[in-house]
């Protein structure tokens, strides 16, 4: 750790020893408030796992693709589509441009071979776009950041273990983006079943060498490691989403009402939505963005700059031979 020097005004010493370095924090904060933040979240999973609802629940507003598009009936597309929807949201003076990237068609076909390819291509395309801006002679003051900061992968609540499709997807994509796996529609699992399932999933992730967020190798210091270890013991979070409010014990809460009880989405005794929200938004949002830009993006950049091909000709993704050498 760097040697830290703190000047504290002693009693009866006046302002001589106070430099005022810490005021920079306030300056940064004010600038950030003015600028606003960008966050790009991708959701991946089969049709009907509650991806759109979860996004709406996380950000307490209608930010998902379905809320924006008027769809009469949800149809499974024959190929995978990548659809981005952006919203400007604000809270206590802090503005955020949130982009939710949906991937309808993933895992829904009879033959799902290579269904990760369009997604991989999209993620690399965003890195490419950023790279192009960066290497420009006349660069923009603030390069618009469309890089995918986080990919939430929805695991169906079978209660058994990961499916081959889940392993294939996460194995490949965890190398280029932060993957946050969640157990979708977790209200179908009892607490016992949930714990068993989570344990199985963690075992399988380890056995397949899949590093999901927060990745162990990117822990910065002991404090980080301690906090992240606790999170790693809990993932994947078992979530339930809802954009409907019900009256429970005199309060209005987000939940799902069934004949045998009401599931409260933000009650940690019912599901782990609150933990996911805290991770993604309240505590680790900046870290997620940081890892994307300083690690995933840099890996991409180094690889691209080492190539002899002109960047223009391959603006839409890596050339084939690099793709295969990157994959295990």
């Amino acid at each position, binding site marked *: 750790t760097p040697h830290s020097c703190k000047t504290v005004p002693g009693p009866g010493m006046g302002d001589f020893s106070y430099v005022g370095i810490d005021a920079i924090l306030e300056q940064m904060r004010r600038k950030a408030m003015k600028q606003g933040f960008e966050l790009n979240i991708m959701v991946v999973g089969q049709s009907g796992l509650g991806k759109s609802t979860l996004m709406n629940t996380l950000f307490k507003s209608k930010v998902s693709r379905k809320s924006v598009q008027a769809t009469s009936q949800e149809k*499974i597309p024959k190929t995978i589509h990548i659809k981005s929807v952006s919203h400007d949201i604000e809270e206590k003076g802090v503005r955020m441009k949130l982009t939710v990237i949906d991937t309808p068609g993933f895992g*829904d076909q009879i033959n799902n071979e290579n269904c990760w390819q369009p997604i991989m291509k999209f993620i690399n395309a965003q890195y490419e776009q950023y790279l192009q801006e960066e290497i420009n002679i006349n660069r923009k003051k603030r390069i618009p950041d469309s890089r995918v900061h986080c990919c939430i992968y929805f695991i169906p609540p079978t209660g058994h273990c990961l499916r081959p499709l889940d392993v294939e997807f996460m194995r490949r994509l965890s190398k280029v983006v932060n993957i946050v796996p969640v157990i979708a529609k977790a209200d179908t699992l009892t607490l016992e079943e949930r714990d068993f399932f989570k344990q199985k999933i963690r075992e399988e992730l380890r056995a397949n060498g899949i590093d999901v967020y927060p990745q162990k190798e990117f822990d910065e210091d002991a404090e980080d490691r301690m906090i992240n270890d606790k999170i790693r013991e809990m993932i994947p979070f078992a979530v339930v989403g809802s954009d409907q409010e019900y009256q429970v014990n005199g309060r209005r809460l987000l939940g799902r009402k069934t004949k045998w009880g009401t599931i409260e989405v933000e009650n940690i005794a019912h599901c782990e939505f609150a933990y996911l929200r805290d991770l993604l938004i309240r505590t680790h949002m900046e870290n997620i963005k940081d890892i994307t830009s300083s690690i995933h993006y840099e890996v991409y950049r180094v690889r691209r700059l080492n190539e002899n091909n002109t960047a223009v000709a391959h603006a839409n993704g890596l050339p084939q031979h690099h793709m295969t050498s990157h994959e295990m």
Partner: protein
Amino acid sequence: MDAIMLQEKLVERLLCPRVRTSRQKEKQYVGFATLPNQVHRKSVKKGFDFTLMVAGESGMGKSTLVNSLFLTDLYKDRKLLNAEERINQTVEIIKHTVDIEEKGVKLKLTIVDTPGFGDAVNNNECWKPITDYIDQQFEQYFRDESGLNRKNIQDNRVHCCLYFIPPFGHGLRPVDVEFMKALHEKVNVVPLIAKADCLTPSEIKKLKDRVRDEIERFGIKVYQFPECDSDEDEEFKQLDKELKECCPFAVIGSNTVVEARGQRVRGRLYPWGIVEVENQSHCDFVKLRNILIRSHMHDLKDVTCDMHYENYRAQCIQDMTSKLTQDNRMESPIPMLPQSTPDVETDRLIKMKDEELARMQEMLNKMQQQIHDGKDQ
């Protein structure tokens, strides 16, 4: 309705209108009205058999539901594969047989499981092992039926296939449609919405409407309940109507007993409440059980024999006769039997039974010889 009660009701109906003078009653009463009772008694002695197939992706609660329906523990020693082991797994067919007895009635229940269905990344034609299995049972029955020794025919034909539709989607997925279409003309397909406790009542209704709609749109012929006789009472007709409108059934299974409302019930315990499997306002488990076991088991078997099997047989004969004329052979009145697929177990059993019969025949001959010799002396 109880099978026994039904029979008794029938007998009653037959006898009642003939209430006249005792003399006339004697004259008109032949006595064959007791036939149903006799059939009933014989069946009870012989016992029943039923073959049920379950299909659907891994983790849909198939095993739990089967155990809940028949109050068995068929999957005690099962080992679940992990994702790596599943990558190269193909669809298997596994049979579990269990003998159940209740109130003197014996049932030989066979559950045909289909692990691996729909679990791979590429599920192209993953239903083929299943359709092949069903065809094989038909073929075996056809051979046995056409054979000379018909005493010990084993009926392994699949009487019903429960197909588990995941509750997570918005309706039928491509694999659901393709599977049901591959099977609907070979077996009675009963679609179910699995793990229905993750859906609210309005979501269940929406999903059922959507699935019913798509079943019609894609021309899938699921098992249809027979129409009520016109002389059934209103209550029966109403129940029947409700049953039909409830399809596909939204089911939940459980092998654990929990305490709810002061009673011990089969259910699932959540932090927010208890789901009771046998509570009709929670799920359609009771309706499914009644259909499958209490009221329509016989009809399922009838439809299998009278429709699906006959279709197979007719198709088979047609194929064979067209092959014969193609080969320019003499047309024989009895078509040649199809090539048998090797089924070691059945062959062995048939061989055993044949040997037994041969032994008995020999004994009989010996006895006859002895009697004959005795007479001569």
